[in-house]
């Protein structure tokens, strides 16, 4: 395993292999997932904590949008500041990245990594069903991400900020999105069934 010169892909593989495999310990299988109710209660308590401490719930797409705005600003500040959609981001002296949502997203990244690594669920891999090739799966992944970015921006929030957070306070628009999200996903399931089944 250990070579002096290793390719980037091997370094990536080693990074995601988790501490036990990196140390050459005997390979044990992944630990079992939590029951959906246990994980749901933890998620609900975290959501409540966000309300109790910050007065705001959880989110993901808003923070990514701020990263995009910062990238635009880095590339061409005049262009970024001229975009109508970013007008609320570029006010005052502070950075567009100094925001609650962004620090929360960094926490998600590290929390997800730590949890997966300690449960031996972290591994460089491609998630797909048996009836589709890697290229097809990656194309769908890119397209799905693109479509969801538009969905989240049009609706002012994604599955975290609206479907979960808004619904927990029974916001009418968020509950509508809860229903439409499941409807859209079930409608699409038949069309993309070769990807997953």
């Amino acid at each position, binding site marked *: 395993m250990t070579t002096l010169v290793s390719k980037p892909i091997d370094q990536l593989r080693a990074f995601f292999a988790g501490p036990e495999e990196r140390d050459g310990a005997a390979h044990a299988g992944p630990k079992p997932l939590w029951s959906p109710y246990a994980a749901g209660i933890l998620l609900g308590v975290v959501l409540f904590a966000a309300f109790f401490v910050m007065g705001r719930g959880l989110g993901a797409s808003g923070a990514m949008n701020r990263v*995009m705005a910062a990238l635009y600003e880095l590339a061409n500040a005049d262009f970024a500041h001229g975009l109508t959609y970013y007008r609320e981001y570029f006010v005052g002296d502070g950075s567009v990245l100094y925001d609650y949502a962004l620090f929360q997203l960094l926490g998600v990244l590290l929390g997800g990594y730590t949890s997966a690594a300690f449960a031996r669920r972290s591994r460089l891999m491609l998630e797909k069903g048996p009836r589709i090739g890697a290229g097809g799966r990656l194309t769908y*992944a890119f397209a799905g991400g693109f479509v969801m970015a538009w969905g989240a921006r049009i*609706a002012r929030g994604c599955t975290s900020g609206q479907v979960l957070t808004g619904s927990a306070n029974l916001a009418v628009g968020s509950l509508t999105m809860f229903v439409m999200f499941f409807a859209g996903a079930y409608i699409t399931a038949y069309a993309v069934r070769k990807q997953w089944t």
Partner: protein
Amino acid sequence: MDLIAPLFKMEFFGADAAMVWAFAIGFAFGTALEKAGFGGARKLTAQFYLYDMTVFKVMFTAVVTSMVLVTASAAAGLLDFGALFIPATFIWPQIVGGLLLGVGFTAGGYCPGTSVVSVASGRIDGMMYVLGFFAGLAVFPVFFDALEGFYNAGGLGVVTLFDVIALPPLLIASIVAALAVASFFGATWVEGWARVRWPHLKP
């Protein structure tokens, strides 16, 4: 009891400390998503082939848990419900946006939050999803001026079912909790039916 929450809005700490809190809350959020199995696209999309309804169970459990804790702490006089940020309703863009989120979810395999966990646990398709998401985010502002009319269509302000239904919020939350428990029995029944109908589909 004394009204103390939301702690940040009651000025228990400042903006810099809020970022540390946000990081801690995010860390727990990422942990919960990963423990549920939401770092992997097959677990997430199984919901829509009926043989594993974990997505529905986790989300509804989380919604009910938070709702009961929020309404109970508001009823106890600890939390000012009116100070919580609640997204305003814009019904038409939310109908279309919700549909697009659903379509993209079964195609892409992730949502924005879970894609971050998938990247953190080594999913290559998750990394591609994030690239696609940023591509969408890059294009959207360029077309925003043409879309702005629709973006603001059907604005109803901040409106919740707590405003609409003339019952104490804690009672409403308890009713929703009972509905959730009933729906979990239904979801488990559907899982069993689907696994008999399509035996090759396994969680």
